[in-house]
């Protein structure tokens, strides 16, 4: 297994663990500082996935749920391509890494036992997909644009339309779950979860951009969302002399 080092994570760039306006964070945020682990660590390796596990419709959320039920039905909603490139902080492509997504349907309803929103389920939409990045770090999904939905955070709080992303990289310490939002969505500025991020530039990094070049005429629009994972840093000196 490869051992290397990663650049220190910038915790101020990420949403703060305790973000009181996002109520669920109040009782689920650690209060003690994280314990810094220097040097070689087990978390600098991680799982690798074989492209063989990916089925031909895994990336296609418009068709994959119905197909699993033996039908050729398609999900209802605005058809979109969501694509982008996974790179590290050194702008090196992250090839052959697993990207997983999940989302609500076009009405803002998730297919989940704990979900209670009044918008109806779509019989042809499951809401999950996955693919591997290619040799250039590129990924691509076909889906429907998810709807906004209310969530029990305040008297009238709504989530902007978003797609959840899970990305692996090559080290467990690079593991990342995040959400992509949609350019121009007026709910973005009202979102307590997104506003747990202090730096407006970091918020911008989570907004997928309308990409007319990739859109398909008379078929679907496209959004581009690039993802940056932690990059390799300099090798730490295990036996560095004091004072150096």
């Amino acid at each position: 297994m490869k051992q290397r080092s990663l650049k220190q994570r910038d915790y101020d760039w990420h949403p703060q663990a305790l973000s009181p306006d996002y109520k669920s964070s109040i009782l689920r945020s650690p209060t003690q500082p994280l314990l810094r682990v220097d040097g070689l660590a087990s978390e600098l390796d991680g799982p690798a996935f074989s492209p063989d596990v990916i089925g031909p419709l895994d990336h296609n959320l418009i068709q994959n749920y119905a197909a699993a039920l033996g039908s050729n039905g398609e999900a209802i909603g605005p058809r979109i391509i969501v694509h982008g490139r996974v790179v590290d902080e050194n702008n090196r492509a992250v090839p052959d890494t697993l990207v997983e997504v999940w989302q609500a349907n076009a009405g803002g309803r998730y297919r989940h036992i704990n979900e209670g929103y009044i918008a109806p389920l779509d019989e042809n939409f499951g809401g999950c997909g996955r693919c591997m990045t290619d040799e250039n770090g590129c990924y691509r999904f076909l889906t429907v644009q998810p709807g906004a939905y209310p969530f029990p955070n305040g008297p009238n709080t709504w989530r902007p339309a978003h797609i959840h992303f899970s990305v692996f990289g090559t080290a467990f310490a690079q593991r990342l779950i995040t959400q992509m939002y949609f350019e121009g969505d007026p709910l973005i500025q009202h979102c307590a979860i997104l506003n747990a991020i202090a730096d407006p530039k970091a918020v911008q990094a989570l907004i997928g951009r309308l990409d007319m070049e990739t859109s398909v005429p008379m078929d679907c629009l496209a959004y581009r969302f690039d993802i940056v994972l932690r990059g390799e840093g300099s090798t730490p000196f295990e036996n560095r002399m004091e004072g150096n």
Partner: protein
Amino acid sequence: MLKETPSQTAGPYVHIGCIPQYSGIDGIYPNDPGCALPADAQGTLIRLGGKIFDGNHDVVKDALVELWQRDGDGDKGIWLRQPTDLSNGFYQFDTVMPAAVLGAPHICLWIVARGINLGLHTRVYFPDEPKNEHDPVLTSAGKRRDTLISTRPDPEEDESDIGFPVYRFDIRLQGERETVFLNV
């Protein structure tokens, strides 16, 4: 230099994307990724499980826990993924005792859930393990090191019941005996 993409919470419906069959979405994938120990993993079978508690001592029932470790020979990495059960909050992995590589034998865990804005890394160590004394992470955890060491509540019952050891590892997100989480 680019900046890392900021994290966002996995939310309460993380199961849909990560373990769809657990959430009732059958057939898109042949099985939930990380749901079973790879057949070629070497070592002594163990069961690792526990609950996650919030600052109110309430059980967190909508978390996803990922595991990364060496197998018993130390050659192969094992990655697994399990939910905290949606009804009782218990998470459970059937895995193998890891070899002692880069410190005392340990299992890396990563926890995501609604309300957790950035996934939390922690580690599970084992009780009565002499190498614990010199493990760098346990040593730097100081007075809080016990939050990283699993327990073996009922050895006799494990052996008669399932035939292999059961280790318990509860995770406390905040408050008294808050688990040590890692900046790694």
